């Protein structure tokens, strides 16, 4: 069996059926890595021996009947801003070059408990700040579809690894489009869940109110299966009865007020996480809105064409598709960069050369040590955002910049709320263009930021969204379709995405 042609869920089923083993799957992936990694550089850390050991252990437990989940034994890649106990976690920064966490990110632990097997840690933009994976301190990742181009970012290593068969699925994080945009650029599926669906404990924070972990896979089904596990199934049985008085608000949307061992205050312990059951090929009557504002100047003609064709396909299958004015789209980027930079400037203060990571040598005085450590440890894009963030929070500017941005965020959220009264899903492009050439984006940061225009407002409003391949440009570079849902409405975008994926395959077949 050619294992690398299987999706993650197909591989998981084959392993359960005894037609393949976790070890064979890992060996196949490692062979592919051997062949392509030099050209692509998807990973920062791979320990082949340990990966194989983990696969052997998973296979043993599968055979012992201890692991029966859909992803048991399936090799996966992990973005290098998710902490892994005993394995370096660098955030693609010189600052964390030698950092080995003592704990594993809670989301990843869920997947490991379900039997998924970690291959290694994927490349990314430094501290997830960037849209091309070129700001990595360990060199750029290349797009498997065309190595002259970037894979997108910041989860570029994860997207490229999925596209190249260097893993069966991968984890990314999405603060302003960092899962969806590289998925789009590499021709794979990437999903950002509703804020709070996946625990952030162990995800090295960039913008805490915006960050969310999500899966990248070859199919919508793979993403749904992975997300289901990532989200966890609520508090573990038998531990949920700790005496507590419920002071929470809206039922269903507020977390259990007391969960033993809780590690993330913003993690919701949702119970409605049966995402795979949403995978139905049916969009009849589904109300889909297309924001006119997403098709304005700056959008490439090829992208527009592919996305509109996708909308037509869904309309042909019974979806009620119409255009509407979402409004405020142009304000999302300035609001986002203010908020994200502010939070980042504070989140990254802990990198000071004292507890872990890089420390500048030969400095005698404390504050000089801080300054030199941070100036040498961080790359230019990270420093740019830290400085901007420190400035917008500083005395005299907090109201004018930071609070203003939070007010605009509220207005953007309201605009989405209004739209979701009328629509089940919002459909649009992921990025204005296909993957740029290497080096093209670095000289003008502002221009790079503008590329996030369709993805960023989703993070500001905490919404779930998915990127699904919907075509290619003239150079064979993939184009992604974005489907955005209201908070907690993952099923709707999963159903739309799955249906589109299946109809498109039938059309091509």
């Amino acid at each position, binding site marked *: 069996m050619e294992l690398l042609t299987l999706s993650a869920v197909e591989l998981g089923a084959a392993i359960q059926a005894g037609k393949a083993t976790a070890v064979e799957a890992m060996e196949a992936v490692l062979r592919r890595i051997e062949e392509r990694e030099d050209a692509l550089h998807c990973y920062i850390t791979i320990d082949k021996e340990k990966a194989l050991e983990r696969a052997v252990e998973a296979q043993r437990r599968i055979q012992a009947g201890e692991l029966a989940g859909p992803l048991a034994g399936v090799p996966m890649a992990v973005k290098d801003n998710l902490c892994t106990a005993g394995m370096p976690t660098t955030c693609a920064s010189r600052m964390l070059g030698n950092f080995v966490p*003592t704990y594993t990110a809670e989301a990843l632990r869920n997947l490991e408990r379900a039997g998924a097997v970690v291959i290694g840690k994927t490349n990314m933009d430094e501290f997830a700040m960037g849209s091309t994976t070129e700001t990595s301190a360990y060199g750029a990742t290349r797009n498997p579809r065309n190595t002259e181009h970037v894979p997108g970012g910041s989860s570029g290593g994860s997207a490229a690894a999925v596209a190249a068969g260097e893993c069966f699925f991968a984890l990314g994080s999405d603060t302003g489009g960092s899962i969806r945009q590289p998925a789009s650029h590499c021709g794979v599926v990437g999903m950002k869940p509703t*804020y*709070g669906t996946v625990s952030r404990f162990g995800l090295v924070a960039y913008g805490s*109110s915006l960050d969310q972990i999500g899966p990248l896979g070859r199919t919508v089904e793979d993403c749904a299966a992975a997300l289901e596990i990532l989200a966890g199934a609520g508090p573990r049985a038998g531990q949920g009865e700790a005496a507590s008085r419920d*002071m*929470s*608000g809206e039922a269903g*949307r*507020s*977390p259990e*007020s*007391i969960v*033993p061992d*809780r590690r993330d*205050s*913003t993690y919701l312990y949702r119970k409605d996480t049966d995402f795979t059951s949403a995978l139905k090929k049916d969009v009849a009557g589904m109300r889909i809105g297309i924001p006119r504002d997403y098709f304005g100047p700056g959008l490439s003609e090829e992208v527009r064409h592919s996305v509109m064709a996708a909308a037509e396909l869904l309309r042909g299958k019974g979806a009620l598709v119409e255009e509407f004015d979402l409004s*405020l789209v142009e*304000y999302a*980027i*300035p*609001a986002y960069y*203010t908020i994200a930079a502010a939070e980042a400037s504070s989140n990254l*203060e802990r990198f*000071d050369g*004292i*507890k872990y*990571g*890089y420390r500048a040598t030969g*400095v*005698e*005085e404390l*504050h000089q040590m*801080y*300054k030199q450590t*941070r*100036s040498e440890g*961080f790359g*230019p894009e990270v*420093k*740019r955002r830290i*400085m*901007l963030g*420190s*400035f*917008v929070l*500083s005395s005299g500017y907090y109201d004018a910049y930071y609070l*203003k941005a*939070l*007010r*605009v*965020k*509220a*207005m953007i*959220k309201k605009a989405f709320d209004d739209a979701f009264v009328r629509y089940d899903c919002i459909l649009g492009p992921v990025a204005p263009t296909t993957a740029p050439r290497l080096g093209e984006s670095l000289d003008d*940061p*502002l221009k790079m930021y503008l590329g996030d225009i369709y993805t960023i407002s989703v993070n*500001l*409003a*905490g919404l779930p969204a998915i990127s699904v391949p919907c075509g290619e440009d003239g150079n064979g570079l993939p184009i992604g379709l974005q489907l955005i849902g209201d*908070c907690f409405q993952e099923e709707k975008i999963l159903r739309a995405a799955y249906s589109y994926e299946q109809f498109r395959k039938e059309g091509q077949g």
Partner: protein
Amino acid sequence: MANIISDETIEYVGILAKLSLSEEEREQAKKDMGRMLDYIDKLNELDTTGVEPMSHAFAVENVFREDEVTGGDGSEEMLRNAPARKGDMFAVPNVMSH
């Protein structure tokens, strides 16, 4: 450029953010920050009177832990990441020396 960032501002932000910049970096940072602020000033086109600043996209409140000890002692593993340590403690430049 509407926002002109002075040397003093960059110096001040450097103190806040604990970053020291070379001459060249400083000039670039002034330019970058000025341009970004010009762009962010676009938000002023919107009238936000009466709009409450929104920290999180939806309201979740009252998340607690019970007052029960769960932490063990992982200090040895943790200290292994320290760039400088002495015994069970992190070592830093003398804080009293300035």
